[in-house]
């Protein structure tokens, strides 16, 4: 009985991973296909769709926007989140639970739910549709993400180190710059990478806030898939592969620092 159950689970996991391989593999193979129609593999291969895709979807401009948005959101999330996470890790105060809730809600509530009112507000102040609007909106979930990723790292830094520095005559600023910041670098790095890769892959808010010149790669990909039939599907898949390469490159970096289960477990304990 137990054996049978284990076998069923094993087969399911294998099936799921195969299904993932099929989903990703189809996109990759299709992007290199000369023409592909109901056969196991395309008849001929070409790299021409990448040049076509780059030109037709104006990927140079789209990629520039993507990188500007991702870099700005990361810098702002770390800049604003660092002091917040540090104080949350070090001090207990009355409003702490209310603050934790305020930081947690944007992560819990789906972006479509608060994205509509947020977009309404930003369009009213004429920030909607611009790159600034996309950055401002993405910061809403990314700032809490940065804070919650950094929090456990800061809690691990011993307060005694700070006291020791103070006893030896360091000022508060010196303690922060010479003791806290160097010890916090792993946390900053992890949070920064996670925010970077999440922002690039973040769809809903960017979709609601972006206009003609402020689409990120994933939003441009959405429109291309949505308007399937306007352009050859192979060129859409070429764009998908470019997007995938960008995300995977960053993901490899992230996984060097974080184990997926460990990250999830930490976030979970924090709630």
């Amino acid at each position, binding site marked *: *009985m137990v054996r049978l159950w*284990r076998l069923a*689970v094993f087969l*399911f*996991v294998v099936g*799921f*991973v195969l*299904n*993932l391989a*099929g*989903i*990703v*593999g*189809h*996109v990759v193979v299709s992007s290199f296909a000369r023409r592909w129609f*109901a*056969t*196991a593999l395309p008849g001929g291969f070409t790299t021409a769709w990448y040049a076509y895709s780059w030109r037709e979807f104006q990927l140079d401009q789209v990629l520039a926007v993507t990188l500007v948005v991702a870099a700005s959101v990361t810098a702002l999330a770390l800049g*604003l989140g660092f*002091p*917040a996470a540090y104080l949350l890790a070090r001090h207990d105060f009355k409003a702490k639970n209310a603050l934790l809730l*305020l*930081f947690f809600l*944007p992560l*819990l*509530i*789906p*972006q*479509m*739910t*608060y994205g*509509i*009112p*947020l977009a*309404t507000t930003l369009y009213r102040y004429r920030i909607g549709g611009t790159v600034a609007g996309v950055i401002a909106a993405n*910061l809403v979930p990314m*700032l*809490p993400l940065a804070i919650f990723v950094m929090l456990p790292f800061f809690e691990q830094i011993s307060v005694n180190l700070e006291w020791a520095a103070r006893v030896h005559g360091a000022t508060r600023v010196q303690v922060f710059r010479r003791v806290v910041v160097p010890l916090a670098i792993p946390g900053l790095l992890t949070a920064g990478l996670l925010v970077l*890769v999440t922002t690039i*892959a973040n*769809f*809903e808010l960017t*979709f*609601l806030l972006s206009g003609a010149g402020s689409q990120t790669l994933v939003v441009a*990909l*959405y429109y291309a898939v*949505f308007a399937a039939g306007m352009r050859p*599907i192979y060129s*859409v898949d070429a764009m*998908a592969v470019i997007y995938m390469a960008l*995300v995977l490159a960053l*993901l490899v970096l992230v*996984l060097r620092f974080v184990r*997926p*289960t*460990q990250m*999830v*477990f930490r976030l*979970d*304990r924090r709630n």
Partner: protein
Amino acid sequence: MLPAAIYLLVMFVYPFAYGVALSLQDKSGGISLANYLAFFLDPWQARTVWVTASIAVPNTVLTVLLALGVAYTMRRGIRMERTITTALVLPIALGTVLVAEGINGFYGPKGWLNQGLMAVGINDAPRLTHNYTGVMIALLVQHFPFCFLMLLGYISGIDPALESAARVLGAGPWAIFRRVMWPLIAPGVAIAFALVFVMNFGVFPSAVLVGQPAGATRTIAIAAYQQAFEHSDMSMASAIAVVMGGCQLIGLALILVLRRRMAATGVATMGAGKR
């Protein structure tokens, strides 16, 4: 601290309040429930609540049960765990749009799956994309890994000594699960239910790209989006967003009530530190 809190107050709490206020405004600027009435009295719009629920509820149950089964079996580690968990992070990192495009290809009528089925002689397999099934597949591919990693983290955090003790005292695998592990896992499963349900209820890109956005999978998020950006009716769009949020809250409340009920049925919970 202050800048981060202020930013979220201005960009999260204020728009929410503004959206709720806007949803209560009628065409002449007065305060009324006109938008909500219009939404619920228009069958085309009101139907989206049912459509979304009929996707979100079965998918949540399926996702959580599968994830629980696999995570429970893998609780003390298995071979190639690191490889498997890394592979599972892929769909989370790649995001809904890319997964949707891949599903359209792989599960499509000309995709590898259908070719494989035809090779073994199944020629009239049901269509798997651009309909309800497509959205179910897309959501499962997207949320199973998330749910699995969360539950795996939760379950492997339980002290293995409890289980060993039960085994020494003669409990079989089913008794161990039912009497020892389940009471400890239940809170984590409730959290998983809540998170997956809320995400499923807000489904947008998958419902458009792999579904049938003008019919069978016109979810409430699509209705809100169309009202805001195709009809430029922001107060109606806000009303729909509020209805969507309300449904998500109702779902959360139901899950919490169920969980309390289950805790109250009085299974022995020795060793469960927090309740």
